[in-house]
């Protein structure tokens, strides 16, 4: 996915960018409202991440500009303020969602997905491996064309695996992606989800193989 990150703090921007690159996203970074306008006027983005306190004004003025141009690229606002002290509902101002800094990237992903699902707009192609397809935005897995209902964690696990078929993922990597930091779960918890996915994949040509001591991999039979 292609993101536009509007954030004046370079350190934070770098940190967020490198974290998102890791998930395979592309990020353009604008430091000021001016730049952000230029980027959003010339480029196509799946989603805009907007800091609200910027050196050349309030991020809300970018939102107004953005909505005035009738663009439907969703915007998620990143704010360091408290909603109680701000007393302004950012959603009323035309943002699709907001998150308070510091934020959890897994939560950001979840919100991005929710926003994109609501807006039905994304350049994300449907991924197909064998007779299994996956629509990352809708969070829809199909086995031989038939939709399969997945729980959120199963879905995120499957997304990781199908995004890089033939790559082995260690249990700990998968745990990192699946569980939040306040959940202390043992790595073995992942086995439950792998088991469930295998069950869903049973009728298909795709399978998840265990590589002892290394982890799991999505393979075609």
């Amino acid at each position, binding site marked *: 996915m292609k993101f536009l990150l509007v954030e004046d703090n370079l350190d934070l921007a770098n*940190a967020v960018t490198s*974290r998102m690159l890791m998930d395979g996203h592309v990020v353009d970074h604008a430091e000021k409202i001016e730049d952000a306008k230029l980027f959003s006027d010339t480029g196509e983005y799946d989603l805009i991440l907007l800091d609200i306190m910027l050196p050349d004004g309030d991020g809300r003025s970018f939102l107004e500009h953005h909505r005035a141009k009738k663009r439907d690229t969703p915007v998620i606002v990143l704010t360091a303020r408290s909603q109680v002290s701000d007393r302004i509902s950012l959603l009323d101002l035309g943002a699709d969602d907001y998150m308070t800094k510091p934020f959890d990237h897994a939560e950001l992903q979840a919100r991005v997905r929710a926003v994109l699902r609501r807006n039905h707009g994304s350049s994300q192609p449907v991924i197909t491996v064998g007779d299994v397809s996956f629509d990352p935005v809708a969070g829809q897995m199909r086995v031989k064309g038939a939709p399969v209902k997945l729980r959120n964690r199963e879905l995120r696990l499957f997304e990781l695996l199908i995004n890089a078929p033939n790559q082995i993922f260690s249990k700990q990597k998968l745990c990192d992606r699946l569980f939040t930091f306040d959940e202390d779960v043992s790595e073995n918890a992942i086995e439950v989800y792998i088991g469930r996915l295998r069950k869903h994949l049973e009728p298909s040509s795709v399978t998840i193989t265990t590589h002892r001591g290394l982890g799991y991999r999505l393979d075609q039979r």
Partner: protein
Amino acid sequence: MKDRREGKVNTSGSLRNTLMVSLIGGAVVLAVILYLVVRTYAAQIAQSTQDRILSASITSILDAAAIRNDTLSVELPYSAFSILSTQADDRFFYAIYQDGEFLSGYDRMVHAQTPPGEVRFESGRYDGSDLRIATASRRLVGGSERTTLSVTVAQTQENLAGVLNRISRNAALLGFGFFALMTLLSLWLTYATITPLTRLAASVQRRGAEDLRPVAAPVPAEMAPLVGALNSFMGRLSHSLDQSEEFIAEAAHRVRTPLATVRSYAETTLQRVDKLENRQALRSMVRAIDESSRAAGQLLDHAMITFRADHLNKETLNLTELTQELIQAMRPIAEMKDVELDLMAHDDVQTEGDAILIQNAMRNLIDNALKYAPFETAITVKVLANPTRIKVRDYGPGFPVEEIDELATRFRRGTNSDGIIGSGLGLTIASDVATAHGGSLILTNPAEGGACATLSL
């Protein structure tokens, strides 16, 4: 809450009472003095009138006396008694003495010696009546005869007493009228003096929490220093409030932005390292960041709510819509844990309240439920009317039974909260919001398990 807003004021006496007491007290004293003066003066006038009549009567008797052929002849003229007749039928007495010897009249009269040409007046009592007695004497010379004739005339004072009573009654009426007039005047005066003060107090009290504009309504010149001081105080207060709100927002921004940087890097690094102890260190780091940013946020929220609790920004709101909006915002977090977030609400539950505060309280309750709810369970949020309340129910371990009443106290965390990030302020905030709306936060462990928090408004 109300008491705190009005504040405890150290009072010494009351301006209104002081004014009223001194004005009405003054009126009483003046009225009594007026009554006494009028009465005394009237009594004196009445007395001197009687005295003049008595004296005229004596004079006419004395004048009628003469020495003819060396014998004293006293003829009592009719006029001497007719002028003494009164409406009250006062009785009168007379006695005539020659050189101290009783000559004629009423012999039991006290006889007083007076020098000639002078009338002497006395008051006395006789037969149960007040008596005014006048005595005068005259030296008569005729041939070889020299004699002193002395006459005493006395009159009862029935008529005088009647006159005095009438005058006293009128004087009393006058005094009372004066008192009544003065009382009305003092009431008006007190009212006129106090009104600008109470009007100012009311106009300051009526203001909304955010209204720190100077007082613009005209006030009497004497109150100008007070109002001037008040205006300048409010100006400074408004300035410092603006500054501190800006400061808080700026401080939050300054603290949270670097925290976000650290967290992002830590997350990125965590994906890259394999060594268990490094991974554990990074996880602890992220948890510490989450804990501190959450604590900072909730402390700020708690401070804001405590401040606002006295000045709620109340409006009519649709509690159902408000809850729907919040649940939509929180659903992605719930989904990450595979927890269902269900809303069960009557259509359009209306309530009076502060939308942001209520939403914040609900957010804290749902947040709590999300933290303790096991994977793949449901959290139900119910919006109920009559009385208006919101129930948040989860199927987690429930509240620790022995501490259930103290959980809403500041920084108090349940004994079963090990390993769960929290500041111990969430339930306090929810409870404060409920109290500010005249409701309460009730925590229960339903029999079927789990925890249930009821926020009533």
